């Protein structure tokens, strides 16, 4: 299954962060690559949504829908904004 990109989760990101996020700049906590969220690699066919650095595959964000809540992990990011 091919990865998509951050555009595909624009709705999810807006829901979670309260504003449009696909143009926001992310910095990978592992390799330091800076990319707009729309360009991040997104694996959306999984028990959760996994967002990875397109340069080094490091996991940047994970979204899991647990019952009625969306749980977010952003530990792989150095920064987002």
């Amino acid at each position: 299954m091919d990865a998509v990109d951050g555009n595909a989760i624009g709705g999810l990101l807006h829901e979670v962060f309260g504003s449009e996020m696909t143009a926001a700049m992310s910095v990978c906590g592992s390799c330091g690559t800076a990319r707009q969220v729309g360009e991040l690699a997104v694996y959306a066919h999984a028990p959760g949504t996994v967002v990875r650095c397109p340069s080094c595959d490091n996991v940047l964000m994970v979204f899991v829908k647990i019952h009625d809540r969306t749980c977010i992990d952003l530990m792989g990011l150095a920064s987002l904004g």
Partner: protein
Amino acid sequence: MSPVSRGFHRRRQDSAENAGRVPPGQYVTKDFPVLSAGPTPHTPLDGWNFSVGRPGRQRTWNWAEFRDLPSEDVTVDIHCVTKWTKLDTAWQGVSVDTLLDLAGHDGPFAMAHCDGGYTTNLPVEDLTGGKAWVAYAYGGQPLEPEHGGPARLLVPHLYFWKSAKWVRGLEFMDTDEPGFWENYGYHIYGDPWREQRYAGD
């Protein structure tokens, strides 16, 4: 309350005759959906090996050695936490009992380690007694990379995220440390018959 979309229904196999085989909250599919948390690894067979043990004291097999081990053909039902169930899936692989007979048991829990970095944890009790395999063929064909080839763990009595794709080893642990999905809120054990999808269920 969302309106019902006129005329829309999900694909599913009529399951009247499958009663008793479908855990709560699941629906039967004829497809074999591909779910992945990352890019598909493509490990060449001459670079593949499988290890069982702890760092520093492991038993390792290369591909040829692994294929020489006694294997079994098994047909099992599989249940994904994303709610699809697939009945009568046919696999060929090495029983984890065979591997542990050769490598020894060295702890009550195990972490499966995989190409691409995926991990999942299981009690060793759930890997033994004829309940688990390292499978390298599906439907009579070599396991395709998108479904976990060259080899994946097969533990059908638990949710299928425990049947780790691209598996390369089992590491014994003293405690039940969470693997990839368990870390993000999925259930530490994952029994589909008790609908243990998320931590706390």
